[in-house]
């Protein structure tokens, strides 16, 4: 092998090493990614329309079109959802600031339980609509509760947060986005 010219030998040594380095880099980045967070194809698409009865006034029907012209959040929740309790205090804080209306989508829940849950933990929602069979959830690509969507004035989904909203997500992503969309 001593006959191999220097550049070729370099390639033989450094080539595989570079490939290995690349593999390590990919795996390393992968360590910090949440496999449960699937990028939603709905971001930057019109929010799927729904017309649903509200939790507290079943005869009142609310549609996505009612919110055209304003920025709003859709928060998917349920009384049976354990991690919804984690984000709930944060939603309560957010509701107090009156920055943006939060619409609750009560997902595959029973009304009495849902109402009791809101009474116990507080109600941060401008209103909650009832998606008893989860059909609207499917249209919105919901696969884990809680999920939070930011919808702009034109009724387009601009952001989706999967899992409980964290202080960081709220302060660094959701609120700045809401402010920007409100100015637009």
């Amino acid at each position, binding site marked *: 092998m001593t006959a191999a010219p220097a550049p070729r030998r370099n390639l033989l040594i450094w080539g595989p090493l570079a490939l290995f380095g690349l593999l390590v880099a990919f795996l390393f980045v992968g360590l910090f990614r949440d496999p449960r967070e*699937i*990028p939603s*194809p709905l971001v930057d698409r019109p929010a799927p329309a729904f017309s649903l009865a509200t939790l507290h006034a079943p005869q009142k029907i609310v549609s996505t079109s009612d919110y055209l012209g304003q920025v709003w959040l859709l928060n998917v929740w349920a009384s049976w959802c354990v991690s919804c309790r984690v984000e709930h205090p944060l939603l309560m804080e957010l509701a107090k600031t009156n920055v943006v209306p939060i619409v609750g989508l009560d997902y595959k829940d029973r009304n009495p339980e849902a109402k009791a849950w809101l009474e116990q933990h507080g109600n941060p929602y401008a209103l909650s609509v009832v998606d008893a*069979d989860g059909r609207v*959830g499917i249209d919105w*690509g919901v696969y884990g509760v809680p999920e939070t969507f930011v919808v702009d004035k034109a009724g387009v989904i601009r952001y989706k947060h999967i899992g409980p909203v964290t202080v960081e997500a709220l302060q660094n992503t959701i609120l700045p986005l809401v402010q920007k969309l409100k100015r637009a």
Partner: protein
Amino acid sequence: MSPLRLLGAALAFAAHLAASQALAQPATDLAFEQRLKRLEADLRCLVCQNQTLADSNAPLAEDLRREVRTLAVAGKSDDEIRAFLVARYGDFVLYRPPVKGTTWLLWFGPFALLALGALVWLGVVRRRRTAPEPVHDVQGAVRARALIDDPPT
């Protein structure tokens, strides 16, 4: 149990069977069921991500199976049903990701690596073949032997 009662029970059972078959008429179509099964085996459950829609017991998987069935009953084609789910959940629901810009590496990367390996292997083989044969200097060996056996004085 008397023979008469036994007969009655058997008749009742047969009637029940017939009734349940009649109720589930569209669903007993074997080809249709097989088609659904195939389709569901190709779709990923979003909750337990390493299971197919067909295998998963997650509530969402049940809902999605029902949705797939409803669409199929409504006469939608397999592609239309897949498109329905992709529009909501992204390519991730497909166990066979579509061939497009972002998935080229995934689809063709292994073949590229294979080709690269073949090239390296060919190179090694060719270099071995063209390398000069080690010289066997028979005459020289004979002369050396002679010199050892009979050193010149």
